[in-house]
Structure formats: C-alpha cells, structure tokens
C-alpha cells in the first residue's frame, strides 16, 4: 500500500509545483478578459467609476487597480456578474443609489448654443451648432448626466425613461 500512497503523493507534489511555477512566471491572459468585462458593463460611459469610460474601467478591473463595485448604472446585477466572471466575492455597490434609466432633455427655449454639453457627451448624442439651439437624440442618450454640469444656463434636466 505504501508505494502506492507515495507514488500518488509524489505526482501530486510535482503537479502542484509545476502549477505554482506556471502561475508565477507565465503572463495572465488579459486582453480577452478586458473585452469580456467590458461586455458586462452597461456602456453608459458616465465616468462615475472614476475612469473615462466603460472600457478603461474594464481594463482597470482586470489589472486589479479598481474594485468591481464601482459601476453605479450597472447596479448590483453588474457587480454579481463581474464577480461570477472574475471569481471574486460579491461586494455591495460603492455608490448607494444606482442610477435610474433616464435621458437628458434640453430646454430649447433657454439653450444659448454654447456647445459645452455637445463636447461633454461621450456618445455624441447631442446635436447643435455654435450659437444655435441644441437637442438630445433621445434614442442614443445613455443617461450619464455628464452634460448637466457643463451647461452655463442650467437648461438640461434628466427625465426618467422607465
């Protein structure tokens, strides 16, 4: 019996050593992973996580420099999926209140045509020329609220879209 036990133990030891060596020395495959993480994110491009868009955040998550619970629009659902994909523990959302789905509405009577909101929009969902009225393409708006702050006349509001 002992030879058998020893043989198995030896094989296990060798395999363990080989695996731990491989884990330390071989580079982790991250490029595909970033894409997969990015796919799970809501693509609001709202930058509330502190990164300038969903893909940069995905890259940071994969690199380990960002937590998986920073995406407010994604909510707990996204945290759960990221945890599933990356084999991490589910964390409570950093932002207490996840965003409701909303679209930006420009009060066209008050708009002065400064184009500040147009350049802030991460998905080019605002159209309008300099000194002319601007408007939001509602179908393309992700509800990220990035256009609200730059407006000098406060004519942009968010409206819930169900």
């Amino acid at each position, binding site marked *: 019996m002992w030879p058998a036990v020893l043989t198995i133990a030896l094989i296990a030891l060798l395999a363990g050593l080989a695996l731990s060596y491989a884990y330390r020395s071989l580079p982790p495959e991250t490029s595909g992973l970033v894409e997969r993480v990015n796919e799970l994110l*809501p*693509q609001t491009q709202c930058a509330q996580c502190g990164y300038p*868009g969903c*893909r940069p955040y995905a890259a940071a998550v994969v690199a380990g420099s960002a937590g998986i619970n920073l995406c407010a629009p994604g909510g707990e659902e996204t945290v759960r999926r990221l945890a599933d994909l990356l084999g991490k523990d589910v964390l409570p959302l950093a932002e207490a209140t996840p965003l409701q789905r909303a679209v930006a509405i420009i009060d066209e009577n008050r708009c002065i045509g400064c184009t500040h909101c147009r350049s802030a929009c991460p998905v080019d969902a605002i159209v309008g020329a300099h000194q002319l009225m601007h408007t939001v393409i509602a179908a393309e708006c992700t509800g990220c609220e990035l256009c609200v702050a730059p407006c000098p006349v406060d004519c942009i509001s968010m409206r819930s879209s169900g």
Partner: protein
Amino acid sequence: MTAPTYDLGKLHGGLRLEGRKTEATREPIYRVPVPAQLILPISQHVGDDAQPVVGIGERVLKGQLIAEPDGTLGAPVHASSSGKVVAIEPWPVARRFGAKAPCIVIECDGEDTPIERAETPPPYNTLPPDVLLAMILQGGIVGLGGAVFPTAQKLMQAVTCELEYLILNGVECEPYISCDDVLMREHAHQVLGGAQILMHALSLNVGYVVVESDKPEAIQRLAEVMSELNDDRLVLKQVPTIYPSGGEDQLVQLVTNLEVPSGGLPTDIGCLVQNVGTAAAIYDWIIDHEPLVSRITTITGDGIAQPMNVEARLGTTVADIVNFAGGYTDRAQQLIIGGPMTGKSVTIDEVPIVKATNCILVLSEPATIGDERPCIRCGECAEVCPIQLLPQQLFWYACADNEAKLREHGLIDCIECGCCDLVCPSHIPLTADFRKAKGRIQELADEKARAERARQRFEARNQRLEKEQQDRDRELAGQKEAAKQAGPAAIAEILKRKQQGSEDD
C-alpha cells in the same frame, strides 16, 4: 357531409376542453348599429403605431384613411363610419394593466356615408402579385385570428420563401369563441374567395381549408361553396377538437406532419397560414373595395343576457355591444377581451373593439381555482405542452431568473396557450410566470443591444477626437516650423518698428 380526418400529423399534448360555443351560435350574426362615437386606436396591429393623417374637427367618411403606417411594420387605420374627428387622445384599450393608448375619436353623423371609390380596379387575377400585395397593404388588413400581424407584410415575407401550401385556419379551438364558425357558415363565399386571391398572389396550387370537427355546419357550408366554385386547388380538411390545434405552428404540424423549427416561421417549411377571417377581409377589400372597418365578434358567457355573434364597427365600445346583447346578467363578475385561455381581463367596458377583438367574454365568477402551492414535479404540464417544453423546469428557472437556462429550455417557443396552468394540481400560474420571464429576457436583450450601440458610438467618438487632436498637433507643428524659419527676419522687423515708434515719441 364531412371532410376526411385521416392523413393528419400528430400534435403533442393539448387538452380536450368543453367548447361552450353553442350558446352564441344559435342565432345568426347581428349587425350592431353604428354608435354615436367611435374610438379608433392608432395601433391595432403588431409593429409601429400608425400616424394620424386627419386633424381635429375634420370631417371623415366611412372607409377613409385616418392613420398611415409608419416604419417597416404596420397597417393603416380607416374610419369605420362617417362623422367628425373630435379628439386624438389617450383612451383605455384592452391591454394588460389597463394601459391607455392614443386613439382617434370620431363623432358619427349617423349617415354612414362611404368614401367614393376612386376607380374600379381590374379583376384581381389579371394583376401581378406585387401590385396585389401593395393593394392588400392599403386595406388595413391584419391577422384576425388574434395575433394582428399585418397581413401584407406577412405575405411579402412569404413570397421570398419557397411555398407549397396555403393553410386557411378555421380551427378556432379556444372555448367560447365562435366568430370564425359563424363567419364560415354565413360568409363561406368570401372566405374561399379570399383563399383564391391569396393563392393567386403567391402562385400556390394547394390550399387547405382546415376546420375543427365540432363545426359540422361550417364544414357543410364550405363544402357546398367549394363544389360551386369548382376549384380543385382547394381541399377541405377536418381536424380533431383539441386545444390548441388552432395555433399557427400546431396547425401546420397537424396538416403537413412537419414541425416548424424553433424560432422559425411556417414559411420556412413551405406553409403560409391565414385565418379564415383574414381571408374574408381580403375578399371584401379586393373585390368589394371595403377596407377593414368592421369585424365579427362573439359576445358570450353566463354574464351576458343574450349570447350571440355580432358584426360591429371597429371602434364601437364593449359597453355598446353588451347593451346590444341585452346587457349584463346579475351574475356578471369578470370581463375578458378574448377567450378564457389567452384573453385579457379588463376592468372597464369603455374599451373599443379593435381588429384583434374576437370575443367579449363575461363570466359569473373569476376563474381562480385555488391557492398556489409548491410544485410537486408531477410532470402533468410536460404531458400537455403542445411545444413539448418542460414547464416544471422552466418554472424553476423563471423563479431563479436564470436567463441562460430559460433560453436553453426554449422559453421563447412557449405560445402561452395556458394548458399547463389548467392541469397543474398545485395551481401554479405558469403561463403568467412565463410571460413575465419572456418580458424580462426581452428587456435584457434590449439592454444589451443598447449597450452595444453606446459602446460603438463611444469608440467612434474617441477615434474622432484622437484624429482631431492629431490634425491639430500637425498644424501646430507646421506653424512652429514656419515661425522658426521666418524667425530672425521677423524679429528684426519688430525691433525696427519699435525703434521707429520710440523715435516718433
């Protein structure tokens, strides 16, 4: 006279339900008089809402186009009688959760003046198929079996496929509903004429007219008219009375013994299915130039004084029709638009009759059967499921919100027939759960599509910004270079000017 029932395919599961149709079929079809006010939803079909083309205060004639299809999928809406448009506003319609939908309200003048026919079109069999299809599109005709899919678009999709059979659906398997039965009894000519038009439009040589065995009068009448027409392309078939054999895919399986693939259409296996009511509507439009402005509806149930079938103008309210049928009885408790299995329960009778309304059912007590108890995994539901799904398994995954497993187990193929609900000994509302789960899957798919679009736009924008930055850098570098070259001379020039300036002072 009966049609042969042999040479049929087999349908899995299904239920033999008590028909309860004779109460309403004893009487002939009555015409409901034109009401004082018509309420016409702009969306009476699958697809995008039609857009109103009339204004408030405008006078309209019977059959006049009042809303045009907008987008790729849709059907026009016509005025059901003459009168004045008094409002275009949200009105309660027979949808789940009592939602309101935009409607065109017409105050009728009682004269019922029809719009003048532009010119007599040539006989349909001299027209090329595409012209005929375009004409059908203008008639506002949609699938009258309940799905209200725009008929013209269904036909346009069908012509791109290799077709073999036209199947005319006169099965009407859901209890209580008998509008197709009386239509075939009284308007067999229109039904078969419509079939001939369809076969011409699609150049088909076989047309099966399929009727359930519990409608002997309709079968006899169809057979009589068929022998009059002497058209050997038309074949009458009788199928056993089993719910839900009138479902489109189920009917194809019964008639041809071929199974419609999951996520596919009957046209994939060479069949085009049309309801008998749709065929009659096509006949009325192409031959008599009458667009779809009225339909036959069954009004029945033990909460109605005189159950009957009526032909009512679209836009007539349920209340008007109930009054016409002698009003409610004292026992009336629940109002359902549609049949007892697939209908929608509504709480007010101000909703209008639309193209989809095949039945108004008033029952004495709500159809609740008992409290929901845990699933005991008896498998009864899988026995009766006509799609051969595993409802008990789907129920598990629906509770756990497991989207991947729901897809894998074919939730998308569920036709929501309600058979599993009926046999469940634990009274689990399976169909309602599946409907909810389907909605959730759709929501997730929409969300994903939206996210993908936002991602593409974000990346496109980043690329654009990068390119702009590069262009600017290049320009700046060019300017710097130019300044450097012109540098010494320019500086000398400036110094000279300064010197002159100080001398002038």
